[in-house]
């Protein structure tokens, strides 16, 4: 069985209110030396029937375009593992 690990992150330059708020909170909690924080999504998709890694990858990339990522503001990265 193959499994795809998908990272969805905001395109650079797009405002990340969540990351900004987390950054503030961490500093408020007294963690020293926190620079920028960015928040994205991590999605795991199981592909029980797929054997071919490169096919799996392009299939999950299609899923990203169709649904998982909002490509207007987000980038995606797909990695396929066993």
């Amino acid at each position: 069985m193959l499994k795809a690990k998908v990272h969805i992150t905001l395109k650079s330059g797009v405002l990340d209110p969540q990351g900004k708020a987390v950054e503030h909170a961490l500093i408020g909690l007294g963690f020293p030396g926190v620079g920028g924080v960015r928040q994205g999504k991590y999605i795991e998709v199981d592909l029980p029937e797929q054997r071919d890694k490169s096919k799996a990858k392009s299939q999950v990339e299609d899923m990203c375009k169709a649904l998982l990522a909002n490509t207007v503001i987000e980038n995606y990265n797909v990695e396929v593992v066993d």
Partner: protein
Amino acid sequence: MKAAVIVFPGSNCDRDIALALEQSTGTPTTMVWHQDTDFPELDLIVVPGGFSYGDYLRCGAMAAHSPVMREVKRRVEKGTRVLAVCNGFQIVTEAGLLPGVLMRNRGLKYVCKDVHVRVEDSQSAFTAKYNIGDVLRIPIGHAEGNYFADHETLQMLEAEGRVAFRYCALDGEVTDDANPNGSQRNIAGIFNKSRTVLGMMPHPERLADAKLGGNDGRALFDALVETLA
């Protein structure tokens, strides 16, 4: 009764619940800014609804770790009552004052509507003016109200009679159809062990005035005033 409402950045039901309290107490409610940790002795602390810190990261997470919540925990140990509504419920679970978590609604959407809840306990300062089995009509407004706890925790809550309210049909029957968010066992509100902390998703302050179409929530504030005065 001396009551205060804690105001976090992003709280937005703070004024509403302060006014509902005022109706019952007849005196102005103190508002406590989240950075003020030395507030006077109180009978009741309210952690209000809203979107503290924008609900970013996880609802309630950032507020739960603010200095004022450390003080709230100390007060709870001393017996001060805490009413935590909606985002307040999320905050106090994140802070560990109540068990479990409030997850994303199973329908994945924000839901604002009236629901019915059945009163499961009438022994607390909050619920003393209700009878067990009473059905209240009360609004909810949340995207993350899906109560989740592990099996042992749920068993403990039931065994200790710590479920305060359950979502139910108009006739009081606890059904899946009446569950607006997927909460386990239709849980809408729970107590801590000593019944001094109540966390609930529905907003009693939103129907505490007949002019706005109902006042089933009013008795909760009246009960607090009577018990804690």
